[in-house]
């Protein structure tokens, strides 16, 4: 692939801190992450001509606050996977000449809720008519609704569901930035507070404040200006939609957007599963990585639970998964996808806290909403 069409991530960084940050607004988190990513890229806002972020507070506000004169803007907001969509959209825009260097920002005051958007939905919306009346209380009682059917049809056990949280904590234990670092057992998971049967607290993601940002450009531009850190190449990407309401998924035991976006990304990258050294799967709840492993074909139907329980995704395993600790142990602001990309970039660069040896290719799978939209990125340390 020519240096002009080879899209690279040249800058990637998170906010200085993650966790409980009541002194920084949603906007402040975006801007801090943006400054850090620009510094990582050795750039200033003057180098940026494209901007992508979700609609809180939106690309116009971020561009204005940073002093970026953007000639390309993307406000795609499809939940926590939006930032994977932004990377793919940025790649398309850059190849089409609509922008040269795109800044993608995430900031969310998920815990402290400083200038965070409200939860309210119109009682006339689909959700307001056909889900909200039944006492769903955010993701813990809606995102989780598919799990019993999944377990029923695949033979996945409750213990295996708990093992997902246990495995990811092993990675978090090696990561000083992870919010939850102490090793846990399956018994600890079952002893934690019941949130929504079959989910105990430790099978649910954290709720934190934080942000992250990426700078995306061409290899040609990156090589022309020089860069201190290894370039991370976008080898393939895919995006797809499933259902606006979890109750309307065509199949509760499979996430169509994981299936279709991973197939598209793998095809574009020209890779197969054995080429993948490192994997990030959005883990808002413990069942979601099991869907990702099966839907992307890393394991066969009904095999994901045992695969995780046998340690294959843990440190030393053959498919390191969610190596920052994931949304359940590292951080989860609400739209976690940015942090999954950040960890993949660190692993490909060789600078992760819990670094996996010799990562040449990393795959990131993002979920948006509750099985609403999904995207997959294939990142690598060399051009396609």
């Amino acid at each position, binding site marked *: 692939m020519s240096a002009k069409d080879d899209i690279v991530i040249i800058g990637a960084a998170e906010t200085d801190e993650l966790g409980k940050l009541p002194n920084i607004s949603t906007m402040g988190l975006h801007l801090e992450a943006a400054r850090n990513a620009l510094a990582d890229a050795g750039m200033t806002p003057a180098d940026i001509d494209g901007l992508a972020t979700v609609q809180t507070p939106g690309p116009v506000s971020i561009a204005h606050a940073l002093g970026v004169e953007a000639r390309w803007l993307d406000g795609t907001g499809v939940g926590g996977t939006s930032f994977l969509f932004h990377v793919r959209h940025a790649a398309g825009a850059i190849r089409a000449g609509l922008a040269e260097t795109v800044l993608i920002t995430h900031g969310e005051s998920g815990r402290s809720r400083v200038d965070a958007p409200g939860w309210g939905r119109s009682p006339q919306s689909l959700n307001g008519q056909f889900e909200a009346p*039944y006492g*769903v*209380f955010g993701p*813990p*009682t*809606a995102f989780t609704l*598919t799990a*019993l059917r999944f377990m029923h049809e695949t033979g996945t056990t409750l213990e295996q569901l708990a093992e997902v949280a246990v495995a990811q904590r092993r990675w978090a234990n090696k990561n000083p930035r992870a919010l939850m670092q102490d090793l846990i057992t399956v018994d600890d998971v079952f002893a934690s507070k019941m949130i*929504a049967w079959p989910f105990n607290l430790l099978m649910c993601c954290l709720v934190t404040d934080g942000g992250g940002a990426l700078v995306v450009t061409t290899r040609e531009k990156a090589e022309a200006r020089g860069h201190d850190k290894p370039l991370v190449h976008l080898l393939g990407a895919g995006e797809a939609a499933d259902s606006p*309401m979890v109750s309307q998924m065509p199949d509760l035991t499979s996430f169509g957007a994981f299936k279709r976006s991973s197939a598209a990304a793998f095809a574009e990258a020209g890779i197969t599963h054995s080429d993948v050294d490192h994997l990030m799967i959005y883990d808002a709840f413990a069942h979601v990585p099991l869907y990702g492993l099966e839907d992307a074909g890393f394991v066969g139907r009904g095999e994901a639970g045992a695969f995780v329980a046998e340690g294959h995704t843990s440190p030393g395993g053959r498919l390191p998964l969610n190596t920052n600790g994931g949304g359940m142990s590292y951080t989860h602001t609400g739209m976690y996808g940015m942090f999954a990309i950040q960890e993949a970039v660190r692993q490909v660069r060789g600078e992760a806290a819990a670094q996996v040896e010799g990562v040449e290719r990393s795959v990131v799978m993002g979920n948006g909403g509750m099985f609403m939209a999904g995207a997959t990125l294939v990142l690598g340390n060399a051009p396609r």
Partner: protein
Amino acid sequence: MPPPTKPAPVPTPETLPFWEGCAAGELRIQRCQACGKHVFYPRPACPHCHSTDLEWVVSDGTATLHSYVISHRAGPGFAEEVPYVIAIVELPEGVRMMTNLVQVEADPAQLPLDMPLRVVFEPRGDVHLPLFAPAGSAA
């Protein structure tokens, strides 16, 4: 501040026949006259064949338990119900909907997947909500 009340749906022109059915004690869903498939949630065109020739039919009020959670935290207005069952049920026509289970203990041992259910209607705001009870329970 008064305690929150349970959310009440407000119909749109497209969904009104469904809610009118619930008020009349009928579970009405759409059927595509072009391809014969059933459709839920209500919408102006068939997602399978894109025909706009949809008719309203009355489902028989039975369903099976497709999946569920038992919520141990109260959604708005649900403080006195905790723990309560939020379920996805499947109608004989194959369409699914979210609901609450009633007249059954919120205990996994009482809630095998695919158990037969029947609809009951509960007034909420200006509409009646379709809830589901075990098929064998007293009306």
